[in-house]
């Protein structure tokens, strides 16, 4: 939500500036060259925005979701296929295993543990997302045929987590799901 607040704050500033400029046209200043005056703001505005962007960039780098030098506590294998996710403790190698896994008991992962999801697809592109029990979207990676994307996550709330598909994959895209559980005691 912080992103929404940031956007609405900046959007309101922009709207206010535009309103101010539109209203200013009601009282035109004859003979004065405001065009040049405003033009002189260009350099300071450029410097200000460039700095703002560069600082934001630097601040965002440590939050890249790409895996770093960490040893996970648990590995979970995620296989996507039109239109379900199999979330398993072992890699899925055949369609039969996939079918079996989609109806099996949900995998349990321990709370606060670093979990590695190894995500792939058996047919088209899918998007593997993690929804917390309260409906918050925690993160995601793409599930691609021929590739295994590795997503590292830590969960601080126990409960049933939902995986929805976040890459359009066909007519059943919106029904596609998978679940797993985050448990307080060490699960296996």
């Amino acid at each position, binding site marked *: *939500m912080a*992103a*929404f607040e940031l*956007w*609405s704050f900046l*959007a309101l500033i*922009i*709207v206010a500036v*535009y309103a101010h*400029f*539109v209203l*200013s*046209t009601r*009282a*035109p*200043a004859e003979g004065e060259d405001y*065009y040049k005056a*405003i*033009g002189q*703001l*260009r350099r300071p*505005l*450029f410097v200000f*925005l*460039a700095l703002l*962007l*560069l600082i934001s*960039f630097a601040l*965002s780098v440590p*939050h*890249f*979701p*790409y895996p770093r030098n960490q040893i996970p506590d648990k590995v979970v294998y995620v296989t996507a296929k*039109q239109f379900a996710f199999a979330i398993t403790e072992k890699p899925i190698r055949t369609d039969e295993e996939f079918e079996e896994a989609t109806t099996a008991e949900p995998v349990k992962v321990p709370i606060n543990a670093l979990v590695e999801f190894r995500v792939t697809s058996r*047919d*088209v*592109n899918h998007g593997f*997302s993690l*929804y917390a029990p309260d*409906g918050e979207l925690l993160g*995601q*990676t*793409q599930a*691609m*045929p*021929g*590739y295994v*994307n590795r*997503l590292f996550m830590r969960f601080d709330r126990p409960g049933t987590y*939902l995986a*929805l598909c*976040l*890459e*359009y994959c*066909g*007519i*059943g*895209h*919106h*029904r596609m799901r998978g679940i797993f559980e985050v448990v307080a005691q060490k699960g296996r």
Partner: protein
Amino acid sequence: MMAEIALPAEVEWAPAERAAFQRLTLAWSGTLFVLFPVLGLLGLFMRLSHANFFPNLDPIWFYAALTLHGVGMVGLWFITGFSGVLYLLSRYVRPSLAVSRLSFALTLLGVLLLVIATLVGRFAAGWYFLYPLPYRSGGAWANWATDVYLIALATLGVAWTLWALDLLRAIAQRYSLSQALCWHYLRGETKPEVPPLILITTVSTIASLTGFVAAVILLAFFAADRLAGVPADPLLMKNLVFYFGHVLVNITMYLGVAMLYDVLPQYVGHPWKTTATTAFAWNAVLFLVLFAYFHHLYMDFAQPKAFQVLGQMASYMISLPAAVVSILGTLAMVYRTKVRWTLASSLLFAGTMGWAVGGVAAVIDSTIAINFRFHNTLWVPAHFHTYFLMGVVLMIMGFLAHLTAQLSGREEPPALRRTILTLLLVGGYGFLLMFYLAGAHHVPRRYAVYPEELAQGILYARLSLPFIALLSIGILLYIWEVGKRWALAFATVGARSP
């Protein structure tokens, strides 16, 4: 008055030729009166589906509508933008009428094929037809529908590539490449004077050509898979399709900005001249636009990390020229100035605000750490609808109001202008706000039906409906007013042509 604001017209057209050109421009823009309401209706249909109005409808219709709405809207605003810019450019250079006519015919054919593919063949892989989905629909649509869709894109690709090449040819007849890109301004020279319209159009056209080439390669890979059974690398295909799509959308935006640079000064009485800063900004855009598309692939961890970092940097930096050159320039142009506010100038001006507001949302989403949670949520359509619907669409609508006013000699009553503007802005921003809120509340995009865990998606869709109603009335009033002028202009120009 024109003379002091814009450079003097350098190209003399024979009256008949001029009339033919005007008619062709009106024909191109006339597609808007048909396609905008129809494609908009598809958008309304999708929001109604989100609001759970059709619980028993086969979801294929939602996804087919999604596909046609997406590809149709981008195509529609690209062609109206390009034809409008071509018209404005005809003061300085001489584009070929024959090529534009051929391109028009091919575009109509392409649109017809798109409609057949989606509404008859129920092709529903999304505008971006992510490989390998189009030929692996799980029986939801037949392979022939995919064939028709891809042939339609190929047709449009040929049409627009010819159009773009001809435009560059026309510019090349008058300017050298370094002049057209205003490199002499960077060296501190101001002669020959090159209008910003030429600069922006050259940049946009070159960039759009790269996009079309990417599309050709993409289609070739699809053909290899379909005809010879040779699979393609899904990651490579993803890069190609997003390169093509991102560039096309970006360029459409810039076509609207080119109109802004050329038309707004006529209502302000102040010329918008090329400077070294303008030249630098647009050359930077030409470079950065090649890399910004990487932000579509942030969630493909398989993509080399350097590309991701480059993508975030390019996406951040590309906002600078827009903000400090075009938007600040627009604001400076009107400040405490006697502006003749008409539908045309108001819409062009309002369009830059949408560009800024949507740009802020885009920069936020192009931050990898934020995209981790926002990727493919409704935040994405929220931001691109802001700089499309409330940005370039308003600019092109403004241009069209300007063109039809010029050619028909008719302008709207001020009360109607105020009504249309209020409806478009209140309806538009209200509609968008619901997208933003839904995105911030984790509602995915491209969902026909929301699962029960995402019930907030239904709520925001319902809340957006009154705003869509206001927006629709605004658009219909605009079409009513400008459509009348358009018909009048068509008749007037027709009377002048042999």
